[in-house]
């Protein structure tokens, strides 16, 4: 078992994350993961994951391609069998446990259906699978996404197939609802429909929702909590607001910026750097403490918060096993979106 390290120096990021995860004592966590590892041959897809997800919140699972997001989500609902470690969902072991799994729905990216099935076949089965299924919502979403119930699933475009998954996920009202990259092929209007309907329905029927995504900023406002997965390990698990404080942007004359970075020991934490003439802008993947802020003001430097997307990109760029910080351009952000 590999003990993962983080840019923040923690030897066991998962445990650190668990300690910081928001969960009030009277609410049993919806998901509890302990020491989870999963190998596929030589590839270590998940490394020593420790997680506790509070119930009735929307959790965002973010990370770069190949970070292990789909593997982690598939493991939560028992579709992938862990190499070691334990997974508890809604108070019970999820693997082959009908009492637990019947209260979950997992909508995959590019969900595959048998070629001969039609949209109404899929919705009909989902209706029977979930006692709290909302037929009215399913109908409304079908209209919103302009899906024909008679359409064959194999004829659906990528976006329509994604829409079908979203309808199943939302209308099921499952206690644990998991969306894996629910944006594939969706146009901006359809994505807007998804966000609106998710929030509306969540407000009326709270449940635990996990959404994995690359489009961090687009869904940032939906999220209560953020889990950052990098190279199979959890490197961040915090409320969205606190996660944003994990990085900041610093701008000003090159000389002054470098001086400040040296004074605060943050030189090695620069995830992104853009320079024009004598001016430079850097993103520092570290919390801005009062001392650094005061020093920046003293030097007349601009200090700004960054978006959640930039936090994710910054932490991904500074990962021990990730690529090294880039000197120019938008490399970190490109990497996160690739």
């Amino acid at each position, binding site marked *: 078992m590999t003990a993962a390290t983080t840019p923040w120096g923690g030897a066991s990021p998962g445990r650190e994350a668990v300690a910081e995860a928001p969960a009030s004592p009277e609410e049993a966590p*919806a998901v509890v993961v302990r020491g989870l590892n999963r190998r596929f041959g030589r590839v270590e897809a998940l490394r020593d994951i420790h997680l506790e997800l509070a119930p009735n919140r929307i959790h965002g699972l973010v990370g770069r391609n190949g970070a292990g997001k789909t593997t982690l989500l598939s493991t939560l609902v028992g579709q992938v069998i862990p190499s070691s470690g334990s997974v508890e969902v809604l108070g019970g072991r999820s693997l082959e446990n009908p009492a637990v799994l019947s209260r979950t729905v997992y909508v995959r990216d590019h969900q595959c259906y*048998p070629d001969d099935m039609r949209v109404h076949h899929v919705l009909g*089965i989902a209706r029977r699978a979930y006692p709290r299924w909302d037929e009215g919502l399913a109908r409304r979403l079908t209209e919103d996404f302009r899906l024909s119930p008679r359409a064959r699933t194999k004829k659906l475009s990528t976006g329509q197939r994604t829409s079908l998954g979203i309808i199943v996920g939302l209308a099921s009202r499952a206690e644990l609802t998991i969306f894996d990259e629910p944006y594939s092929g969706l146009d901006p209007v359809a994505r807007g429909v998804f966000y609106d309907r998710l929030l509306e329905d969540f407000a009326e029927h709270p449940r635990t929702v996990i959404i994995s995504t690359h489009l961090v900023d687009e869904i940032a406002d939906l999220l209560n909590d953020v889990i950052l997965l990098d190279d199979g390990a959890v490197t961040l698990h915090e409320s969205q607001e606190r996660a944003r404080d994990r990085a900041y942007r610093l701008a000003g004359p090159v000389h002054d910026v470098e001086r400040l970075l040296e004074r605060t020991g943050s030189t090695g934490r620069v995830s992104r750097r853009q320079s024009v003439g004598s001016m430079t802008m850097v993103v520092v993947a570290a919390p801005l403490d009062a001392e650094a802020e005061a020093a920046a003001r003293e030097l007349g430097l601009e200090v700004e918060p960054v978006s959640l997307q930039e936090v994710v990109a910054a932490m991904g760029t500074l990962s021990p096993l990730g690529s090294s910080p880039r000197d120019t351009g938008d490399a970190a952000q490109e990497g996160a979106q690739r």
Partner: protein
Amino acid sequence: MSQAAAEDNRTVTGGAGAGGSRRTGEAPGVAGTGGLPDAGRGRTMLALRYYLTVPSRLYTGPGIVVVVAALSLAVGAVILGSSQAEAADVSNGLTYNQTVVWWGSIAPLAILCSAVGQGTTAMLGLGMTRRNVWWGAILYALVGSALTATALVVLIALERLTHGWFMGLSAIDIIYFGRGSLLSAWLIALGTFFGAQVIALLFTAIYLRAGAMGLTLSIVGTAVLLVVVMGILISAFSRSEQGGVSALLTLGEGLPGGLLPWALGLAVLLSLAGGWLIYRRASFR
């Protein structure tokens, strides 16, 4: 609606345990699985419904049997009409024709394997377990095979009633089905169609667990194993008085139906158990 509004609403209605089950008055989530109804059996029936949800799947077996039987009969009629042969001779030749057996097995198994292969992750995503999906598929194979066998037996009955479709041709009541009672024909047909699907499900499970390479290796391995076993058996029996294959066939003389049905039955049972053992430990990324 904004996130803040959602938060507010959650504050009002929140406080429920996992998934808000207390809010709706349903059984709360508890540690372990105690206190919760066993949803397993119902979910297996749900998986069966998933397979049955496309009606054309279920009718393919009977449909293909009717079409192939009609084609066989047409071929027999053409031979009878275009040659000097007696109806009895043509009919005798037709009784060795097994196209109805092969097509009645192959078409449904292709549909079932596709439904399982393409539908597994969707069914698991809807909260079913591997056990539900697998045994739902087995139940579906049983239902589909029973329907196909019934269609076949109806055709046999009609053929007998019409004395070979008024031409004296026996295109469906073939030697393979025993030419005995309708019940025995139905059982043989059921066993054949069901067995073929179970064996095919074994290879589907191998594909889902080990991918295309695993499937290829397992098919080649099975073929090699069969050749080796047959070679060893024939070699062992070649020293007997009758020698070789004929001696091997006498091995089943004491068994009803002979050796072959029992060997196939064993293969089906092994496939049933092996398929489940392989499928239950498969991971679906």
